[in-house]
């Protein structure tokens, strides 16, 4: 079997590249796409503040700048380094998750973050990446035959369910779902048979009545309201009803920048965070909404291209896992504000105001970028330089 890339580009096949060379190989189109999406966010946050950089737009810009630095930093680190430290990262994330759980029990209500002073660290955000890295590492060395053995699938399944359980307990249904789904995507890409998914999904559906008992009242309420939002238009259904009004009244061409009435007059709740897409689509109409959708699709397609182009299974799985997580963010958020899925509190990636999500997303794209830079590096079973 010929592997043209390996032969033609001996330079890229070098086991060692210095960081200058790596910087040279940074994919600026990817960064431009990220910046384009983030700019839509800045524009929106400026409007959400009633035509002011304060209090959101400037902070968001700074975070994006910081995020891009992190992205580049992550990208130049050798993919193998990430692979070798995948389990460690996973362990650290688990510890942090437990810590948050403990702190949360001591404190009041749902505790999801650890205050580091300059930033509020959400362990569940790190876990999203750590889990992808760990699963990618686990499946990196696995043959299709390995993957075919059910017993082989038990460790990664445990790896997934442990954080999902902790996150559910926080309780953060949105993140739990995302962890499950992005892991599912990796299992799928690794070659797990479809019928196995069928069994798991079937078991999951069967467990719903049981799981329902463990849901918090507010979560039950959210699901009920999703099923019938008009039942409580002034209460908890208010969010989704107002969001649909804002979207619908935007029409094809929108009300004009900074002229959104639903958002400008605060009928739309959380307009700078979870419901920012609604605000954008109110002011820019369906055209604006489709444009943004297009940007996201482009970015995701780019992620796919990078993943598919990668030689190592680890890189491919990481690239696709991150891309899929990103897709889930974007899909769940937009579907939620349009009333297609229940309100679960997932931000619109790179656009919603918020530091942790922005930084962790760019960290993730940093890994994709690293996959791109190190696309031709063959990686051994355990992350060694040789096959």
């Amino acid at each position, binding site marked *: 079997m010929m592997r043209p890339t390996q032969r033609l580009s001996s330079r890229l096949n070098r086991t060692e590249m210095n960081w200058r060379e790596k910087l040279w190989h940074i994919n600026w189109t990817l960064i431009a796409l990220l910046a384009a999406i983030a700019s839509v966010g800045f524009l929106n946050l400026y409007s959400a503040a009633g035509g002011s950089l304060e209090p959101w737009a400037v902070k968001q810009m700074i975070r994006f700048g910081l995020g891009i630095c992190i992205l580049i930093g992550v990208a130049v680190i050798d993919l193998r380094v990430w692979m070798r430290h995948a389990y460690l990262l996973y362990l650290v994330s688990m510890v942090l998750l437990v810590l948050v759980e403990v702190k949360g029990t001591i404190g009041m209500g749902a505790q999801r973050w650890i205050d580091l002073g300059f930033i509020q660290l959400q362990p569940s955000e790190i876990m999203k990446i750590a889990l992808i890295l760990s699963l990618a590492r686990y499946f990196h060395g696995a043959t299709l035959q390995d993957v075919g053995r059910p017993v082989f699938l038990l460790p990664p399944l445990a790896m997934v369910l442990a954080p999902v359980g902790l996150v559910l307990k926080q309780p953060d249904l949105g993140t739990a779902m995302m962890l499950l789904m992005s892991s599912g995507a990796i299992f799928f890409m690794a070659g797990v048979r479809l019928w196995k998914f069928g069994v798991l999904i079937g078991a999951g559906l069967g467990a719903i009545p049981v799981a329902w008992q463990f849901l918090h009242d507010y979560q039950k309420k959210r699901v009920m309201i999703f099923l019938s939002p008009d039942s409580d238009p002034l209460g908890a259904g208010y969010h989704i009803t107002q969001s649909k009004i804002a979207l619908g009244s935007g029409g094809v061409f929108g009300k004009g920048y900074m002229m959104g009435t*639903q958002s400008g007059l605060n*009928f739309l709740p959380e307009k700078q965070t979870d419901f920012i897409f609604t605000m954008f689509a109110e002011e820019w109409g*369906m055209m604006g909404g489709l444009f943004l959708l297009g940007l996201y699709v482009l970015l995701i397609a780019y992620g796919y291209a990078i993943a598919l182009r990668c030689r190592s299974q680890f890189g491919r799985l990481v690239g696709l896992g991150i891309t899929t997580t990103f897709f889930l963010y974007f899909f769940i958020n937009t579907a939620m504000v349009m009333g297609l899925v229940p309100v679960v509190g997932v931000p619109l990636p790179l656009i919603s105001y918020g530091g942790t999500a922005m930084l962790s997303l760019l960290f993730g794209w940093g890994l994709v970028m690293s996959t791109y830079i190190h696309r031709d590096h063959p990686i051994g079973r355990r992350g060694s330089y040789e096959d």
Partner: protein
Amino acid sequence: MYHDNDRSKTFSRRAMMLAGGKAALVSALAGRMYYLQVVESDKYTMLAEDNRVSLRLLAPPRGPILDRNGIAMAINQHNYRVLVVAEASPSLDYTLDALSRIITLTDHDRARIHKETRRRRSFVPITVRENLSWEDVARIEVNAPDLPGVLIDVGQSRFYPLESLGAHILGYVAAVSEADLTNDPLEELPGFRVGKAGVEKIYDLALRGAGGTSSVEVNAVGRVIRELERREGEPGVDLTLTLDIRLQEYAAQRLGDESAAAVVMDIHSGEVIVMASTPSFDPNAFNRGLTPDEWKDLINNPRAPLQNKAISGTFAPGSTFKLIVALAALESGQINPAQTVFCKGHTEMGSIKFHCWKKGGHGSVDLIAGIKHSCDVYFYEVARRVGIDKIAEVARRFGLGVPTGIDLPNERNGLMPDRDWKRKALKQPWHPGETLINGIGQGYCLATPLQLATMTARIANGGLAVVPHVARDHIDGKDATSRSAPNWPSCGVQQKNLALIRKGMNAVSNEPGGTAFRARIDQEGMWLSGKTGTAQVRRITMRERETGVKKNEELPWKERDHALFVAYAPEENPRFAIAVVVEHGGGGSAVAAPIARDIMIEVQKRERARVAGSAGGREG
């Protein structure tokens, strides 16, 4: 590396599948967007507008009410209110403490303010106190820096500068009650007042005007962001009355403390120039809000200050009714004016004795003498001949027993009895003796002072069915137009008969021996012609007649006679008709006639001054 190649293929295939799934989901998003933003867009646009735009009603200023000379009787006054906005004040109690050093605030006020603050959003101003004096306003403004969150607001409130003068005609305004609700959205406005009595009530729609609207943009919590559109309403019409408030004032003074009413009207146009009813009340009290004690005093006063006795008080017309009896007799041809009846002080019907007011009798009495001396025996005989049905029929044509149709609420019908009425109302046959009793204006028959004035006006104007009114213009709903020249229908009586009645009335006032001769007007061209009436309100027993009928002064107020007087003036070319009723006042000639005379002198003096003034104006 074989397995890696295999894996890579699987990966690529599955990546495509995953991508396909994602594409499907993205298509669903785009489809949903299309559904919401194109298909359902109109619906949501409307909902968004509903959210955003709030329509507020603007209260139009209520129309002022003026007398015939343009003197203001009802106006709108600035009502200074002090308001507090909870969110603008660091602490409500601190602000209220500071405020209470300037104006008095009761604990009750404070409790109400706190309660309202909890109920409303924190930016909604809450009324602390209304009707502040200008001094208080000034002191609050000066101390404004120490009063965070305190606002002064100017509203409009109804004010009646003449207080009790003309109060019965004006009526008053008060908060809207369930019964007042029409479909006017103005009624929903907080603090909106509607007319509850008098012309304020009957012309309420015209006085209200039309509300304007202001569409404002509001945010999610209801705070007004800006005004989008403003459509000014139309202020209420200026309502000019036919009353001359100076004459009204004079009449009210002249009636004094009596429970009495005086009505002066133009016999041609029907304009009511004076309509006094005493005692009166201050309509401002109703707008301000009456205390329970004030209300009790008004309600329990035996002289009924709240009642407009000119239209709502019904009295036995007494001898003033003899004019109608005489007219009915002449019209029916039952008497000849020259025919005489002999009055020996009483007459009999069966076993019942009917007394004349003059114990010794009047001797031989013809029509003119009968009216002049108000001889009861003469009218017993006349009434007996004419019969009650004919009397009642003529009486109704002259406005008795039927509403005059004046533009005021709560007008009473009075009562003109006939056989039919008694059969229906009392389920009893008519007793012939009752014809005699009613023939001198006693018994069942009742009339309001306005009806008596209208009757007199119709006699004086040549038998035209003039209808009294108090609004100068014709008002229909919300529109006011000038009244067309009056074209009253005829009462259907012969002029020569009316001339005889007027001759009798002239004799009453201007011939020595007439019952009102002492209350005549001497001034040239101002002579009045009238008819006295003294309505008995108690039964005089046989025994009392033997020992001598008690004088009014000896009786408790409630048992005293009503004093009545009707008249027109001037004698030549009559212009004004008057009716004066003094409840339990005593004799018509002694009590009512002098009042009527004085009022008629003033009325005619004012008329002369007006004519002279306008003539002078033309020359200059």
